[in-house]
């Protein structure tokens, strides 16, 4: 279980997150909604260890939390421009999980297939459309099979068909016991996939939904 207690964060003296507490059970999916600029991305970055909170405690299964447990699909993708779509996905499995090139390629191609991206696997990020980049970013995070998978608006650049595809993917992962943390503006989508919805509200009047 991921537990966040009394988390606070401000930028330039402006409180963005104040005294936020929530918990996410293993295998469950939490969606985070809230108006633009409310601090969703900031919260995700803190959980991923990319931003430090001003105060507050995070624990995983009661133990000190290590951000290494998370994988992230970034809002602006952050693909590696010097690698092809396929290489973006296989890099970490090969280097970190020590998969063979063959196994990593198979895994990546499976994921690309599922996201209808197989024809683009040899293209570099600058040659991809917005939605194509987003799908590569999703596949890259999935391939690492992290304990907690965080998505920052994973469907923003996708058409309805693909959104459905991603929804299926997420539900599928949930069935396999994957813990997921999803920022989204799409309330319908949020309802479909969530065990729990975290509604962020401006100025510290946070609430669990």
């Amino acid at each position, binding site marked *: 279980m991921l537990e966040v207690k009394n988390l606070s964060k401000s930028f330039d003296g402006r409180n963005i997150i104040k005294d936020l507490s929530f918990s996410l059970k293993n295998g469950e999916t939490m969606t985070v909604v809230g108006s633009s600029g409310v601090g969703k991305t900031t919260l995700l970055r803190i959980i*991923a260890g*990319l931003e430090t909170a001003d105060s507050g405690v995070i624990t995983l299964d009661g133990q000190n939390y290590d951000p290494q447990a998370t*994988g*992230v699909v970034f809002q602006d993708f952050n693909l590696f*421009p010097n690698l092809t779509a396929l290489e973006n996905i296989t890099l970490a499995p090969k*280097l*970190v999980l020590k998969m063979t090139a063959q196994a990593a390629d198979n895994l990546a191609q499976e994921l690309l297939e599922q996201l209808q991206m197989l024809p683009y696997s040899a293209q570099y990020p*600058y040659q991809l459309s917005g939605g194509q980049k987003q799908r590569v970013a999703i596949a890259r*995070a999935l391939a*690492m099979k992290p304990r907690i998978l965080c998505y920052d608006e994973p469907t923003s650049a996708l058409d309805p068909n693909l959104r459905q595809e991603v929804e299926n993917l997420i539900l599928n992962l949930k069935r396999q016991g994957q813990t997921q943390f999803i920022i989204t503006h799409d309330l319908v989508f949020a309802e479909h996939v969530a065990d729990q919805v975290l509604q962020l509200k401006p100025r510290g009047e946070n609430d669990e939904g």
Partner: protein
Amino acid sequence: MEPRVIVLLRSMDLKRTFLLGREKMDYVIEIMPALLSGSLMTLKIFFWTIILAFPLGILVALGEMSKFKPLRYLVEFYVWIMRGTPLLLQLIFVFYGLPLLQIVFARYQAALFAFVLNYAAYFAEIFRGGFQSIDPGQFEAAQVLRLSRFQIMRKIIIPQVLKIVLPSIGNEVINLVKDSSLVYVIGLGDLLRAGNVAMARDVTLLPLVLVAIIYLALISLCTLMQKRIEKHYSYYR
């Protein structure tokens, strides 16, 4: 670009002054061997400095960004001295100063030692700039994929840095070709020295014109290689 040079040299009235009379051609043929053997020293210094200073420069750049403060200060101090004083003086100190402390280098080794230390510092600054201009999102993305610091460097950052720093490195390489003439101060004869000797002896600017043309050729070669490498790296944006 080369053919255009000829045209320009002709169209200006340089011909009358510097070039191309029958006796002058003979003179050129006479001094060419000395100039070419001077170029050999230039090329040797150039070649070894590149080979050794390039990897050292990357290491120094990493040292400059190290979180271990004593190391960082030491490396910063080294870069500060190397960039802060003329290479000419560094050569003098290595070759003429160190023997006062009982450290005696042979001529050519002293030259290489000073050149490598000096250029590594310059390369390091360029690499540091390159590292810092990489989008932090790239580090973050690699970090959450649990790549080690070393893997992030090797697979993600350094390839992108190389692409970025290529023009600056090109500049320094060109400087190196020219700086190599500084070895005159420790008694090594290079291209420029050969031209100077001929000029002082024969009281004519012609040898220097030839020296300039040889430099131009060497440096054009470097630029050409740079363009090649840039093209190689243009597979992504």
